[in-house]
């Protein structure tokens, strides 16, 4: 069992948790992920490692409530435990030789992009960090973000914080202004990563994306997370989750992400029933 030692509700849909798992905290590196299972009937889901404290032996996960399991996870509190917590899985991010980088995080990706930005910043890399939210009330971790980069750009879809537009608009502005990046790291919704890749492709800027497809085991056993990269089938769990975004077949990944749309809706009904005793 893996105890939840700290829980913070960052905004109505995003939650922060620290899980006690010393053997994972000891080894974790930015870009890696864990698989978790809440209880005996639970499904296994992958979550990117959002941080770790090697001394305290804790691993941080930040998740958005999007489906049954993430809602159920959010129902848990400090002192509760997760039944299974496995990691660190996947290949750590490669940052060798980078001097100036733009990290772009959209949606839940902002939380996942944070450890990457921080790691780069700690290595002395100049980091422009672009994050996006729906509105100013949903902005999270602003202080942490500020301390993890050289320049922080916070965008809101509705402009309620004074900076209206998607993260891609901010990136475009930087690129058009002639800012030169050794690499762009894009983490967030598939469509956002796809748009970022389309923007950087012609300019020849190396673009790394972090894929988070549906997984079952997370160790290379099932092939559920496969995607096409440069015409080859790769497994996100063991070959990734980071890939060269210009080589990823995003349309296929986007289609595959919808595989269990109907079943996800059915599971959510179950969650609502559990909360309301069937009253909707």
């Amino acid at each position, binding site marked *: 069992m893996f105890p939840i030692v700290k829980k913070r509700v960052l905004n109505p849909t995003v939650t922060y948790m620290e899980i006690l798992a010393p*053997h*994972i905290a000891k*080894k974790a590196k930015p870009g890696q992920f864990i698989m978790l*299972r809440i209880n005996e*009937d*639970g*499904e*296994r889901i992958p979550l990117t490692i959002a941080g770790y404290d090697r001394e305290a032996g804790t691993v941080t996960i930040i998740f958005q409530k999007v489906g*049954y*399991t993430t809602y159920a996870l959010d129902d848990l509190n400090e002192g509760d435990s997760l*039944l*299974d*917590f*496995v*990691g*660190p*899985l996947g290949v750590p991010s490669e940052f060798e030789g980078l001097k100036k980088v733009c990290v772009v995080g959209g949606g839940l990706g902002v939380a996942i992009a944070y450890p990457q930005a921080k790691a780069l910043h700690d290595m002395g890399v100049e980091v422009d960090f672009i994050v996006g939210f729906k509105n100013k009330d949903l902005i999270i971790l602003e202080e942490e973000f500020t301390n993890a980069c050289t320049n922080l750009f916070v965008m809101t879809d509705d402009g309620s914080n004074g900076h209206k537009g998607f993260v891609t608009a901010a990136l475009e502005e930087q690129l058009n202004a002639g800012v030169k990046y050794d690499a762009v790291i894009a983490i967030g919704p598939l469509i956002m990563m796809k748009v970022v890749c389309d923007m950087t492709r012609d300019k020849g800027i190396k673009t790394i994306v972090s894929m988070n497809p549906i997984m*079952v*085991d997370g*160790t*290379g*056993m*099932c*092939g*559920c997370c*496969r*995607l*096409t990269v440069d015409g080859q*089938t790769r497994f996100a769990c*063991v070959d990734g989750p980071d890939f060269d975004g210009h080589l990823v077949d995003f349309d*296929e990944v986007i*289609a*595959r992400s*919808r*595989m*269990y749309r109907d*079943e*996800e809706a*059915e*599971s959510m009904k*179950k969650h609502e029933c559990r909360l309301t005793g069937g009253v909707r």
Partner: protein
Amino acid sequence: MANMRLDKNPMPEQEPNVRNKNFKEVALGYTAEMAIDEAKRCLNCKNQPCVSGCPVNVRIPEFLSLVAEGKFLEAAEVVKSTNSLPAICGRVCPQETQCEKFCIRGKKGEPVGIGRIERFVADYAMANSKEQPQVPAKNGHKVAVIGSGPAGLTCAGDLAKKGYDVTIFEALHTAGGVLVYGIPEFRLPKALVREEIATVEALGVKIIPDMVIGKCITLDELLDEEGFEAAFIGSGAGLPNFQKIPGENLMGVYSANEFLTRINLMKAYDFPNHDTPIKVGKTVAVIGGGNVAMDAARCAKRMGAETVYIVYRRSDAELPARAEEVHHAKEEGIIFKMLTNPTKILGDEEGRVRAMEVIEMELGEPDDSGRRRPVPKAGSEYEMEVQTVVVGIGTSPNPLIKSTTPGLETQKWGGIIADEETGKTSREGVYAGGDAVTGAATVILAMGAGKKAAAAIDEYIQNK
């Protein structure tokens, strides 16, 4: 006087049209009377050809004669002295190519139903034996076992019996390896697997789940920092192979591993009570002819598919699956499309499978495996309308351990190079066996390898 009946006592089974709608065990097991009657068919041959056909050398005539006398618990002791997982082996061993293949009774009529009697004896002992196994005195030496499938469990059990302090590291959340994620409930009930594993734990073996060796901790760290003097790698062949034909990443194409893992390990057949979903179309094609393909096809039927095909590029005679599995699948209404090979999978505008294009094959000259090579018949392509495709054409060893263990030599295809008699690898103190070495094979061969490695590890540590 031996019972000279020519055929085996038939196995009581659920009716095909009932069982293909539930996940309960297909074969119901012999009664005591049937077991005794069947055991009496054994001629007690002097040279015991059956024993040499068994990878773990169960003393077959000895336990059969005890069964014939009604001494079931004593018979179970004989079986268990060389086979730590008899209830499993009695169900999933390919007896027709092992012990029963060499049975003299098979020369005229059917061989003795050794597997069926083994199963009876094991089940009987499980239900009736109150005795707790004695935990052997510890000898102070620590051994790590990677993987809790048949190879790892056997190796761990044998070492524990000799007094070793054994820890098994399992990557998944449940122990058992292929016994729990691969082989379905209707062929091997999971409660029974748990009980057999509990008997190994009762010997003092510790099992730690959720530990992916190579990621959570490396083999070198186990040996250098955690105080293990030797290690056995029984990590199986978990990496699914695909055919590399167009359309394999469409929605609705599963590796057999994924399909079976969702159903068996994650209990997707009980969705939404269990949280893991699966999608099974009205028509399902399973590619491949081995046990895994049979399991997938029979699961698909039980998940409600109306039509399920086995699509295999060779002919009936070359099907690598156990004869009984093929027989059961056919009884349950699985349609066998032999000499047929997929060429591409076709999707709709959403990216979901709508059909599979296949080509007819014919058998040519024998290939390296000695089987006649299937050759495509030019121009014979046609489309099969399917919504789900399960690829069951084999698996390769998972590279996680190899890639994180310097000096561990492997074959080009990924199998760990290990001595056939001892399991010794290129790394001192590191042994390996089962599918991780041979590629996908059988439960009993993995157990045989685990057994040999346990003996070799004992010798290695004692002579250090």
